[in-house]
């Protein structure tokens, strides 16, 4: 029961992060600033949700379930490696393409 | 009587086809012509070898392959085919000789091609003569159409191109557009295409259908130049004269009428035609053609065109002979194939000889030419006699039978047609001869020296002229064959 | 009315596949740009895959991988418990085919661009007509 609660908390938190990321994606004024929520919050959301789900499926505790849990963690590792890299790549691309960053006071783009 | 299986018909067909590769590969003109002669002679001998058997009333058969159910690729030598083959193969020898003279005399180009297609055309002609069924006949008919195209357009100039187009349009158009469906329809009706003496079409067909079929055949074999599908024939006169001679007096047009004869006798059968009065309809068309063609011939100035229209008229005699549905007329029509062939080829040879010797082809230029080319013009006279139908030439004989036939069939109007047409023939031939011998022409012809065409040209036309006369006295093989066929 | 509604609801996957297919087909026919057409082609192909996979679906069944294979090797397997695997197999093939087609189509599109310097069909046709 405790575990279920923990799972729910984790997952809900993760979803919240996801929601924030998506909202940020929609709300922020320009491409560069949109990358901030998209990059960070989605990673964080994935972390929380996967943690929660991993915890959930760990029971009943067997070799298979542990391995599956570890696989989930592996996914997490990869997300943590890939997500900032992708964010960086996109931002780099933007700079190379010559996109001007939004300055305070500019209209939304 | 039981037909006799034999390979001879096939050999007779293939012999000229077989020399084509040799002709194509030989570099020397002499070798090529020697081969041509060899093939022609061989072919004639092969045909002659079959003659006794046919005269006995037996038939030779050679089946190659059953291509469609009930339809075989089959050759059969019967009397009618024999008659035609005899004429065609004997004339090939003569025409070959004449061609050599003509082509060399005019230094024509593409002689190898010329001889090749000539051989091909002869193959097709003999094949058509020996066809045992409508399919085989059609095969050789089409083969002939395409083989003669390069001959007709031999000059490869704009006029030849035009005429070639016209030729193909009429011949191929009618054969594909009319004969092919008619043939398939006949097959549909009866399940076979094999010629029989009483025709293979079912007796119980509807008269309208049969009539339509008959006219599809009649006009479809446009080589017979039944009006209104005759226009290709004058146009095709652009060909070198030996071509016109052999093909347009013998092979092509005769194949056309031969096909019509075959269709009338072998597909429909005279009884069927009689029972639906279809013969009379055909006869009317033929009669119309005879009269109109003769009238047009009267107005022509170019010798070959005149001959062409004369041919159109004469061909319809043959059709008429069959359409009268009486035995005598049928014999007359069949014999006319041979007689007209010899007579008309003489005329064409003469026209060619005149052209080789003087480069003249218009009637108005030929005034007084008899002095310069007496032998040629004498032969011309003989030919003209034969075509008009006067003794002592073979033409008389066939016309005589035709007249008898009309009497036998009680077709008085047709008698009238034949007679009046003979008059018209005379009206356009005699002036030529008359003016050639008894008038003074322009300067080039008036220096009384005799200057004939080369010997290669001259000898053949003498032979044919002699033959024409000979057949009056000795028509036995042709007459016998025609009677056999008419039975 | 309710019948129709039931009919519609009971087959909603099929309606979507038809929609997708129409989208793809429209893209292939009406779009002017060659790469767009290729996109349309792929959508079209996936629509058919969707159709096939929809055939295989069974309510209340699980994925077609037999459970507990090691423990009870010869326990009777009930076919109704597992989703029909055959459409999946077919669609694996179809996906492969669509990737292959995509590769070839893109290669050809690149070749077209190399020759005509544009991907717009009308411009290419104009170039061809007026060289």
């Amino acid at each position, binding site marked *: 029961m405790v575990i279920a609660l923990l799972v729910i908390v984790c997952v809900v938190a993760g979803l919240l992060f996801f929601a924030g990321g998506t909202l940020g994606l929609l709300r922020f004024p320009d491409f560069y600033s949109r990358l901030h929520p998209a990059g960070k919050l989605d990673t964080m959301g994935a972390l929380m949700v996967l943690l929660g789900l991993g915890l959930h499926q760990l029971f009943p505790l067997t070799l298979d379930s542990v391995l599956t849990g570890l696989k989930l963690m592996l996914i997490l590792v990869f997300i943590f490696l890939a997500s900032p890299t992708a964010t960086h790549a996109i931002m780099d691309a933007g700079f190379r393409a010559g996109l001007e960053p939004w300055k305070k006071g500019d209209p939304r783009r | 009587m039981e037909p006799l299986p034999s390979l001879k018909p096939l050999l007779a067909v293939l012999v000229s086809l077989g020399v084509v590769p040799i002709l194509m590969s030989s570099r020397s003109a002499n070798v090529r012509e020697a081969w041509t002669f060899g093939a022609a002679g061989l072919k004639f001998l092969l045909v002659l070898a079959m003659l006794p058997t046919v005269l006995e009333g037996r038939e030779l058969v050679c089946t*190659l392959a059953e291509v469609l159910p009930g339809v075989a690729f089959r050759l059969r030598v019967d009397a009618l085919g024999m008659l035609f083959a005899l004429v065609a193969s004997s004339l090939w020898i003569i025409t070959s000789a004449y061609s050599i003279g003509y082509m060399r005399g005019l230094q024509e180009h*593409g002689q190898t091609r010329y001889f090749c297609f000539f051989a091909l055309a002869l193959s097709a002609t003999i094949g058509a003569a020996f066809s045992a069924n409508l399919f085989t006949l059609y095969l050789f008919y089409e083969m002939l159409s395409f083989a003669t195209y390069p001959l007709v357009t031999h000059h490869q100039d704009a006029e030849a191109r035009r005429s070639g187009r016209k030729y193909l349009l009429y011949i191929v158009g009618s054969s594909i557009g009319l004969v092919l469906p008619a043939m398939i329809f006949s097959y549909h009706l009866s399940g076979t295409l094999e010629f029989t003496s009483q025709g293979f079409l079912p007796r119980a067909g509807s008269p309208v259908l049969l009539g339509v079929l008959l006219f599809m055949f009649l006009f479809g074999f446009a080589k017979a130049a039944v009006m209104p599908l005759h226009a290709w024939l004058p146009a095709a006169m652009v060909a070198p004269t030996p071509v016109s001679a052999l093909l347009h007096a013998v092979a092509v047009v005769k194949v056309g009428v031969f096909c019509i004869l075959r269709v009338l006798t072998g597909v429909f059968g005279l009884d069927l035609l009689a029972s639906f009065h279809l013969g009379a309809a055909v006869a009317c068309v033929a009669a119309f053609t005879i009269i109109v063609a003769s009238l047009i011939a009267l107005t022509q100035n170019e010798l070959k065109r005149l001959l062409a229209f004369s041919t159109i008229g004469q061909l319809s005699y043959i059709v008429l002979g069959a359409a009268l549905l009486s035995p005598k007329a049928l014999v007359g029509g069949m014999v006319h194939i041979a007689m007209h062939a010899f007579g008309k080829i003489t005329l064409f040879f003469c026209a060619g000889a005149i052209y080789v010797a003087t480069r003249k082809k218009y009637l108005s230029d030929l005034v007084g030419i008899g002095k310069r080319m007496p032998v040629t013009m004498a032969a011309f006279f003989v030919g003209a006699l034969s075509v008009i139908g006067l003794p002592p030439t073979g033409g008389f004989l066939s016309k005589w039978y035709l007249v008898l036939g009309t009497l036998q069939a009680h077709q008085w109007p047709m008698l009238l047609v034949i007679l009046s047409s003979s008059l018209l023939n005379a009206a356009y031939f005699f002036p030529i001869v008359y003016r050639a011998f008894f008038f003074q022409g322009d300067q080039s012809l008036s220096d009384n020296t005799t200057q004939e065409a080369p010997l290669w040209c001259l000898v053949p036309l003498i032979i044919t002229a002699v033959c024409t006369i000979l057949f009056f006295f000795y028509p036995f093989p042709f007459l016998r064959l025609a009677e056999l066929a008419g039975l | 009315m309710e019948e129709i509604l039931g009919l519609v609801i009971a087959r909603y996957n099929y309606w979507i596949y038809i929609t997708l297919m129409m989208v793809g087909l429209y893209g292939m026919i009406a779009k002017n740009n060659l790469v767009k057409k290729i996109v349309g*082609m792929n959508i079209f192909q996936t629509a*058919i895959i969707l*159709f096939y996979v929809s055939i295989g679906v069974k309510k209340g069944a699980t994925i077609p991988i037999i459970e507990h294979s090691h423990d009870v090797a010869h326990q009777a397997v009930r076919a109704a418990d597992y989703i029909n695997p055959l459409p999946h197999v077919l669609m694996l093939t179809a996906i492969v085919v669509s990737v292959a087609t995509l590769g070839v189509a893109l290669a050809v599109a690149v070749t077209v661009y190399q020759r005509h310097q544009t991907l717009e069909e009308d411009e290419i046709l104009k170039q061809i007509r007026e060289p």
Partner: protein
Amino acid sequence: MNVHYPALLVIIPLLASFFISAAGWLRPVWCFPLAVAAMAGSLLVSLGLLVDVLLGIPGLYWFGGWPPPWGIYYRVDHLNTLVLVIIAAVGFVNLMAARPTVERDFPEKAGPFYTLYVLFVTGLLGMVVTGDAFNLYVLLEIAAITGYALIALGKGRAALSSLHYIFMGTIGACFYLLGVGYLYIVTGSLNMEDISRLLQPLHGSNVVIVAFVIMMVGIWLKMGFFPLHAWLPNAYTYAPSPVSSLVAPLMTKVMVYVMIRMILTVFTLDYAFLVLKLNDAVVWLAVIAIVAGSLLALAEKDVKRMLTYIVVAEVGYMVGGFWLGNRAGFTGAVLHIVNDALMTFCLFLAVGNIIHVKGNSRLESLSGLFRTMPWTMGALVVGALSIIGVPPTCGFFSKWYLLLGAIQSGHYGFLAALLGSSLVGVVLFFRIFEIGYFEPLGASHGPAHGEGGAAVREAPLGMLVPLWITALSLILVGLYTGEIVGRVIRHAIPEMML
């Protein structure tokens, strides 16, 4: 005979294609011999199958040993054995003829070219012999993808045409696949005969109707049936000549075969002719196809393009012939698959030779060709006569059956269209012959022109020999029509067609 023949038929070229591809990297010289070996192998196997069928031995093969409907099986019967032989033979002969062009135009890509070539033939063979509806799709795609690539290899507009072909081909293949799916959803089977058995009680279902329609449309797209033919002329025209002489004769014919196979084996004739009653409509479509193909061909100034429109018209022949729904029409359609493959093959080979020598095939560049390329033009004449339908070339006999079928079913529109298109064929080809025969004005007469004037500049012998083999086979097949119909096609005619 060997029970593994049906499998070997496709496995030999398939295996060979991998080796060819590898040889392209390791020993390029081996590519061509390997390809020849592959084609010869499948030709021999197909002949073996033909003999088997003639002897009455059923050619059934269960792949993986699984019985149908669970496994895939191949089936050789009277209907497809001839098509198999034709495909293998055309593939083999064309390969011989392709070599000079390949070595001259893209020598460094010979390896992949032969690989795709062999795979294309493999795909077609498989399509013809398979008894599984989905397997047919996969093989169809093999043939299609190789075809796209080979066509795009041509110059100029080829790439765009190939891309159009890709789009149309994909739509066609997908429609076919969709049809298979529709059948699957109501029957649950993919095996053709099994489907047919299960379809019997379902003839009234909308699904089956739509499956039929969609499948037909897909197949028609692939074969270039008239309103759906738009991709065909460009694709075949701009392809390199060894490719067009392979694809043009085979692809459309095989699709016609697939149509016949689908209707006969899967939907049954009862369904197609009695339940749906589409036959009149389809025959009229075929009439339109024939007329339109012929007329469009008339408008063309390029021989190869003209031939492609003739292909369009010929497709109309076959479809119409089949949909006439009687024995003669069926025989004609099946016979025409064989004959037309040979005919178009001959013509495309001849045009390929002309292109090899002249660089293009526009009408004006043909002038004087009878003199400079007599052998090529001679074969062209034979092919043309066959298309026109002159006996004893094979084109006549299939046309004969088609016409007979039209008469028997009283479909005079089809009759007229056939005859008309033959006449148009005369006009088309004699236009070519005139140009080739009548040289440009001014140079035509005179003694200087005597014997053998202009130098003969023929295609290489390696291209002429295959061409003449094909040309002679046209006549040979024509003469053996009776045998072919009597011993093979007659047994393929379903009982219902009487």
